[in-house]
């Protein structure tokens, strides 16, 4: 036993050395036109050695140390608690939702412009995560290319507005429907795939869309992106200082208040809020409808679901299409918020972050996903001072989360169907 853990610890220590030595210990220095490799200073070497020793010691006593962590469990007031009865839990969740929305409504009038902007981004991620939750959490289809549908929504609005001057409100349904259409089209070839294979194909699809946007320069402007995307209007009222669209009036003149750039930011935020609430409500409704139950049945056991006469094609396509629809929604809002989009906004990392939100929140649970979206978007902003270590902190948080709460923040507990008179 001891010998085994000693071997393991030694192995981990050596691996640490092997990884740290070239990354930290070797430096490329430019001398004129040539580049030479230099060893690092003594302090770095010492640090690498100390790190290796720390890893070695930790691995050697890992079991004992992790055993001590039980103390942390005991400190957690929610641990080992009886699950709440259904009715009470649902009431609490509803209260939580209402509180969240109430805070969200007054939020923009209390904080700075930057915070409102960030909150808009949070809402966009909430929409994305709720949409992906349908595909991954409910239907159990691992989609690693979800960002593609987001891109379709954003680019639909950007292109429509720059070629034909289509407004935000017209582009919103078009973008969402077009994204849904892409979801449907992608759905067909991947129907037969499961698990890993599905993940690979969707990953490829996400990259195809991004690379297409990047290289179809004549249409999309390639890496230069598309700028000058108009802001949304409120019944023909614009939020800019000067009116751009024909027949529009400006918001501040109509109401006789002085111009402020904050109006636009707040308005965008409120649109995002309304759309996010709309997304949550629609998906909540769908979850209780037969289509929602068929997603869950397919996730639980595909063969059994088919034996009951459910069409695998129909169920998977509906999940993909609905998920993509809301990504298109979010994409349109994103394009409008940024005013400029380029393929860089739709890299794989985005898909990964959205997926991380869904997993962290607890697959299938709406409130959990919303909280996770807030956490995942805001934490990196709070940690701005540690800019270089953001991804490191993010990674560490994910690992800890998976160790301590693998089922997610608020795991899904479905509202069970109850029948009358049985």
């Amino acid at each position, binding site marked *: 036993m001891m010998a085994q853990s000693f071997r393991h610890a030694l192995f981990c220590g050596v691996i640490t050395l092997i990884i740290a030595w070239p990354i930290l210990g070797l430096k490329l220095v430019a001398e004129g036109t040539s580049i030479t490799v230099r060893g690092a200073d003594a302090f770095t070497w010492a640090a690498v050695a100390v790190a290796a020793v720390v890893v070695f010691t930790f691995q050697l006593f890992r079991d004992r140390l992790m055993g001590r962590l039980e103390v942390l469990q005991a400190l957690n007031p929610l641990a080992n608690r009886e699950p709440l009865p259904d009715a009470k839990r649902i009431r609490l969740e509803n209260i939580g939702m209402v509180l969240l929305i109430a805070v969200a409504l007054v939020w923009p009038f209390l904080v700075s412009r930057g915070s409102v902007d960030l909150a808009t981004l949070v809402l966009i991620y909430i929409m994305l995560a709720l949409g992906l939750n349908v595909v991954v959490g409910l239907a159990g289809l691992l989609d690693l290319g979800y960002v593609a549908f987001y891109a379709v929504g954003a680019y639909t609005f950007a292109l429509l507005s720059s070629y034909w001057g289509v407004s935000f409100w017209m582009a919103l349904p078009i973008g969402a429907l077009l994204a849904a259409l892409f979801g449907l089209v992608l759905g067909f070839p991947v129907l037969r795939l499961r698990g890993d294979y599905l993940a690979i194909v969707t990953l490829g699809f996400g990259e195809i869309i991004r690379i297409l946007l990047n290289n179809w320069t004549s249409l999309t402007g390639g890496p230069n992106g598309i700028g000058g995307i108009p802001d949304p209007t409120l019944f023909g009222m614009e939020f800019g200082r000067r009116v751009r669209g024909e027949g529009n009036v400006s918001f501040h003149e109509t109401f006789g208040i002085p111009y402020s750039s904050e109006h636009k930011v707040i308005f965008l935020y409120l649109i995002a809020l309304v759309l996010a609430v709309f997304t949550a409500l629609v998906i909540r409704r769908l979850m209780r409808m037969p289509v929602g139950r068929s997603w869950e049945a397919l996730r639980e056991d595909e063969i059994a679901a088919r034996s*009951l006469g459910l069409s695998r094609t129909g169920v998977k396509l509906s999940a993909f299409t609905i998920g993509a629809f809301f990504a298109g929604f979010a994409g349109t809002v994103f394009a409008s918020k940024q005013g400029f989009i380029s393929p860089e906004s739709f890299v794989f990392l985005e898909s990964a972050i959205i997926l991380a939100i869904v997993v962290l929140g607890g697959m299938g649970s709406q409130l959990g996903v919303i909280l996770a979206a807030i956490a995942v978007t805001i934490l990196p902003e709070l940690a701005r001072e540690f800019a270089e270590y953001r991804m490191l902190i993010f990674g560490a948080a994910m690992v800890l989360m998976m160790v301590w709460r693998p089922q997610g923040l608020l795991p899904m507990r479905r509202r069970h169907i109850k*029948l009358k008179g049985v």
Partner: protein
Amino acid sequence: MLVLEDVYTHYGKIEALHGVSVEVRAGEIVALIGANGAGKTTLLMTVCGNPQASSGRILLEGRDITRRPTAEIMRSGISIVPEGRRVFPGLTVEENLYMGGFFNERADNERGIGRVYELFPRLKERGHQRAGTMSGGEQQMLAIGRALMSKPRLMILDEPSLGLAPLVIRQIFEIIAQLRDDGITVFLVEQNAHQALHLADRGYVLETGRVRLQDTGLNLLANPDVQNAYLGG
């Protein structure tokens, strides 16, 4: 009720069924027995359209279903209790039953669940328990109950006794007999040949993708070849 006429089925290039003809008449219990790999499950899957027969015809109540998609076949009066039960482990018993009547009216489902609970009082006790936490026997009852929810005229059971205790197996077979009395035609696939043939009106013996023998259940039980091969001598 269900007629297979000279059905061939292929998995890729491999031919798994070599011209099988089977008939299940309305109101009967028909047992299909055979060793591992004889093609019993393949035959059932072919009836369900997954995979589809490469030649031959399958008739359900006189209608040709050979080329119909699985989802459509499963909605036309057949229901199947799949091998290994395959209940939805994360759903409650009641939700599992509800899934069985997915295409029914709500009121029909409430009546249907009531009927299933009469048949299996055990399931009523467990109505709000997650199906994955129940014993194998209870899960098998649930799988049968779920299959009943769509009000089938023909029920296909694939190895319902697999992995169950003898006492539970007897219970399950009693239920199957009761299904016939309720007017449901039963097509039973079993390795547990002894009990299956006792119960069945007629039986088929499948060997390497061909029907080797067919007779009444009791005659097959008495048949020395069957006794040697499937009943342990």
